[in-house]
């Protein structure tokens, strides 16, 4: 049984192929390139699996932002929150946790109890607490994201509510002579401060991180003070696509 899961994110499309409950293939394509180079439109979006070098798929499941964009021919679309929860269950083996998914352009927080969603909060109104904000700030500082993610010591306050105004605030701090490590810490800490109010309603013992920001070790450091355990998934960016495969597995078993 080969199950294909595709997560159509705002910045990248993640593809995972699972065979007999094991991941045998996973890769990313930029969202623009995916629609332009690997899809055709024939009343519905048709994915060219041959171009993606994928064959013999028994079940195909898609997820992503907005059902219309994820409605691919021959794919069953599922709600992205559910996809991320299934991905986290598969990767962590846990059934009771809080899931924090910081994606390119949105943030989701989900409470999972007994393997079922019992509460959720989404922030899809403001970009100041998601991955794109970190990318922009790294560009201002002329450092890579990996470098940015390392620093957590001696942050200075960045108070802007807005992701764009934060850039000018950061430039001000550079002009004041704050060192680069502290500037990186400040960006990470400002992200933590924006996530915190969203997380206050989600008290729990275990926090599972997914999405590209789960690689941010500084953020993990800050969050560790609020939870007994902060768990980073092995493939945080592929979590939604993995969840699609896991869902496909459940569905095929029930059939």
């Amino acid at each position, binding site marked *: 049984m080969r199950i294909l899961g595709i997560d159509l994110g705002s910045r990248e499309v993640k593809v995972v192929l699972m065979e007999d409950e094991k991941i045998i293939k996973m890769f990313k394509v930029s969202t623009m390139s995916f629609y332009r180079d690997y899809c055709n439109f024939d009343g519905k979006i048709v994915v060219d699996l041959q171009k993606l070098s994928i064959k013999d798929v028994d079940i195909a499941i898609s997820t992503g932002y907005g059902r219309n964009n994820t409605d691919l021919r021959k794919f069953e679309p599922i*709600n992205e*929150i*559910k996809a991320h*929860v299934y991905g986290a269950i598969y990767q962590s083996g846990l059934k009771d946790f809080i899931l924090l998914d910081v994606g390119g352009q949105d943030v989701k927080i989900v409470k999972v*109890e*007994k*393997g*079922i*969603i*019992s*509460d*959720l909060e989404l922030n899809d109104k403001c970009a100041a607490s998601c991955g794109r904000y970190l990318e922009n700030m790294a560009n201002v500082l002329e450092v890579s994201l990996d470098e940015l993610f390392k620093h957590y010591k001696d942050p200075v306050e960045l108070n802007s509510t807005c992701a764009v105004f934060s850039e000018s605030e950061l430039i001000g701090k550079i002009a004041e002579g704050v060192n680069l490590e502290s500037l990186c810490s400040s960006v990470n800490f400002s992200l933590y401060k924006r996530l915190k109010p969203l997380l206050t309603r989600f008290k729990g013992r275990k926090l599972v991180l997914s999405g590209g920001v789960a690689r941010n070790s500084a953020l993990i450091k800050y969050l560790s003070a609020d939870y007994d355990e902060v768990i980073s998934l092995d493939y945080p960016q592929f979590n939604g696509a993995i969840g699609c495969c896991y*869902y496909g597995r*459940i*569905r095929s*078993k*029930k*059939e």
Partner: protein
Amino acid sequence: MKTIGITTTVPIEVLLAAGYRVIDLNNLFITSEDYGKYIEIAERDGFPKSSCAWIKGIYGAVLENEITEVIGVIEGDCSNTKVLIEVLKQKGIKVYPFSYPHSHSLSDVKKAIKDFMSLFGVYETQVELIRKRLNDIRKIAKRIDELTYIEGKVNGFENHLYQVSLSDFNGNIDEFEEMLLKKLHEIEKRSPVMRKVRLGYIGVPPMTGDLYEFVEKFDSHIIYNEVQREFAFPRAENAKDIYEQYYDYTYPYDIGFRLEKIKEEIKKRKIDGIIHYTQAFCYRAIEDIIIKKELDVPVLNIEGDKLNHLDARTKFRIEAFLDMLSDLKGC
């Protein structure tokens, strides 16, 4: 005929024996077009914004409907009632406290009901006659409940309504019996409607009555209403007297006793998941900790406050919960 308001289910047999027409103030409040106005009246009179909407609604309903006598259940339901009846007393309303003993021992229950009978000057024999009469009506409600989970002929809201109404028999037992029988005959002729996900509803009856219809959009239905069913006393015919009947009643006693019965029903009705409703500012929200640990099926806790319909966020949460329950159940 004198009218008396009740703040929750009480041994109504005693009040009927005393010649009262009984009105459940919760029903008077929540079924009114003016339900919001009742809350407003209470808040204008000084009830805090951060207090239970049921208490405020009851207060407004008493004043607006010129109810002159009220039974306040001060133990086993809601501790706010203690103060509610004091405020009502200050307004010139005649109030009587009633307590379901925390000990939940048969001798204490017996004493509480005996005191209640002497308060209204009625005898056990009179009360037992009324009890037998009411038990005939309780049997009809029980049958409607069975037609819900065995035959799929009753929807969740009807199941809620035709059991919760037995707290006061809509103020007229003969008319209520006639209405219930008519409903039963109509239901029996229906074709069954089977939905995929079988849900149980536990906790106090909801402010948000649209919950029942909302879950049906997701191929789910509520086939068990815990507290409403208790209000209808489905085990009344097994009780040898009024004392036993109100002893074998889960709602006002400890959570352990409630959970015993809930677990039985989950098994019997093949329930896939539970919606646990709690009212904002109510101590029962804390019971959710125990409930979630004790029950094997997934539990979703939703909270209502002043609105009589579900808000968008709660709808979103219910949808996500039912979506995953449906996956678990398969095709």
